[in-house]
């Protein structure tokens, strides 16, 4: 079987956040890692490969330097890496991103597509389900367990207070939770091979069935009106010489004012 795993290179949110003048993120200026939910999705694909045999293709969209997460995936055991990169694709929101990645996936044969549930930079959880919608295949999001049964997948789909065991005929798309598994490390041999591995690079013109009105910043229905680093809190209010009743009452007042009680 053929599995496509969508991965994203994300800034490590611990490293600070920078913007370009147009309000979009300046990804080039930040440290980059493979998004954790995507890594769990890749691990799930590699386990299916280990057990059932499969060809695992990883695909990403981003700046040329996103090549690094593809090589990391190859070093973990993926078979092929594809980088979608083009200036005209920059500044895309989830609509334009999902249109673009779906167009890339149309170039491939696939039985199963796995994406992470959400990326730690945007936290939207939208691109996976939207890719499935553009491709016209079922989506199962929030997967906490994935099994292959013949031509179907059986997935535990997590909700707040329950999970559903869902069965879908392939092809379908699954979005993975990071608690799905513990991703393996890259192997030394894998790293060695990945350095020299051939990465396929696609630009705008390699993507079919994709309208120019649906790509990049211009093709994004959502527009950033304002973006800013979160303002650090100012000095708080301090009460020093209150008796216990007055102290308790001052806290209760704050809780009432904020509609907590």
């Amino acid at each position: 079987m053929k599995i496509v795993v969508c991965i994203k290179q994300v800034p490590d949110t611990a490293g600070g956040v920078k913007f370009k003048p147009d309000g979009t993120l300046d990804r080039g200026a930040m440290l980059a890692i493979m998004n954790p939910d995507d890594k769990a999705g890749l691990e799930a694909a590699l386990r299916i490969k280990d057990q059932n045999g499969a060809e695992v293709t990883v695909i990403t969209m981003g700046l040329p330097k996103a090549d690094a997460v593809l090589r990391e995936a190859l070093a973990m055991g993926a078979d092929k890496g594809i980088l979608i990169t083009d200036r005209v694709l920059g500044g895309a929101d989830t609509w334009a991103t999902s249109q673009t990645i779906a167009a890339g996936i149309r170039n491939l044969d696939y039985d199963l597509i796995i994406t992470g549930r959400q990326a730690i930079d945007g936290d939207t959880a939208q691109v996976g389900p939207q890719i499935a919608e553009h491709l016209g295949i079922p989506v199962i999001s929030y997967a906490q367990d994935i099994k292959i049964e013949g031509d179907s997948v059986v997935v535990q789909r997590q909700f707040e207070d329950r999970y559903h065991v869902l069965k879908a005929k392939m092809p379908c798309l699954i979005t993975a939770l990071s608690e799905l598994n513990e991703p393996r490390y890259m192997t030394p041999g894998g790293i060695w091979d990945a350095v020299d591995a051939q990465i396929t690079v696609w630009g705008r013109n390699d993507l079919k069935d994709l309208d120019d009105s649906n790509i990049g910043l211009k093709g994004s229905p959502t527009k950033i009106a304002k973006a800013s680093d979160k303002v650090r809190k100012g000095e708080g209010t301090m009460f020093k010489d209150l008796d216990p009743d007055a102290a308790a009452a001052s806290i209760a007042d704050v809780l009432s004012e904020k509609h907590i009680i």
Partner: protein
Amino acid sequence: MNLEEYKGVFIYAQQVDNQINNIAFELLGKARDLAKTLDTQVTAVLVGSGIRDLADQLAEYGADRVIVVDDPELKDYRTEPYAHALSEVINKFKPEIMLVGATAIGRDLGPTVSARVGTGLTADCTSLDIGDFPLVARPGHEDEQKHNQLLMTRPAFGGNTIATIACPDNRPQMSTVRPGVMQAIQPVKGAKAEIIDFNPGFTPNNKYVEIEDVVKVVSETVDIQKAKILVSGGRGVGSKENFKILQDLADALGGEVSSSRAAVDNGWMPKDMQVGQTGKTVRPQVYFAIGISGAIQHVAGMEESDLIIAINKDETAPIFSVADYGIVGDLNKIVPRLTEMVKARKKAL
């Protein structure tokens, strides 16, 4: 897309097991504000099987109209056919604004529907307003500025940034909204809404997955990362037994108890409850730091909390530099009194 055709503020009234989720009432509360500014109606979209009699509840919480999509295919949530139901409602009734809760259901339904109807979606919003886009008109291009736009504000980058997003050229303007942020109104008993039954027809296709089992999960240990209110104690609490006064306050507030590393190292609290660099990172609506000095490793795990209230007898404790409200005093006297006041005020409501 003729934007003028799209009118009204719609909310998706999520129900599970034929019980309306609280997020629906919260969305109605916000929708009323937005509709007032826009001088339009609030419509709730109720999707499920055998759910028609839930419509009155939505009226009591502020819906002017309820569109009911009731079909046996809609018994338990599945992306399809629920996405079909909501998409067809949007195509037929053309809302200007469509709000969905950012729940495990809404964050699946929202993206699928927005992709299907061809509009943008802003995820996990914490604030919604009506305003201009761009916020400030470009000089010489004042006529290009659009008015009465939905401005959707959301945190990103793990809370490091805040962005305000608009969707000026597509309709509906669609967002998922974080649960627990918007305020429901006091329900108006006996309020009635116009009820519209709508069934777009459901024909199973390749996107209909099969539900083999529904497993309800009763969590054994409390997940402090999910708590909206955390009452956290440290070395200053003094003993394992004394954590009871924190538990009492947490119970009164509907919150959970957590702790600093010192309390875990002393064996007063289990490791699962530890907040900080070597414990868990939490971001509740309210974080009480009680008898916690506020070492940098602890602060790293809780500084993003919306509201931080610290009680400590040492006025030089570093916790006071991150607290929104700091009380210098004896926790043993203040906490029990606060618990009583919380109970009394909740009862009075």
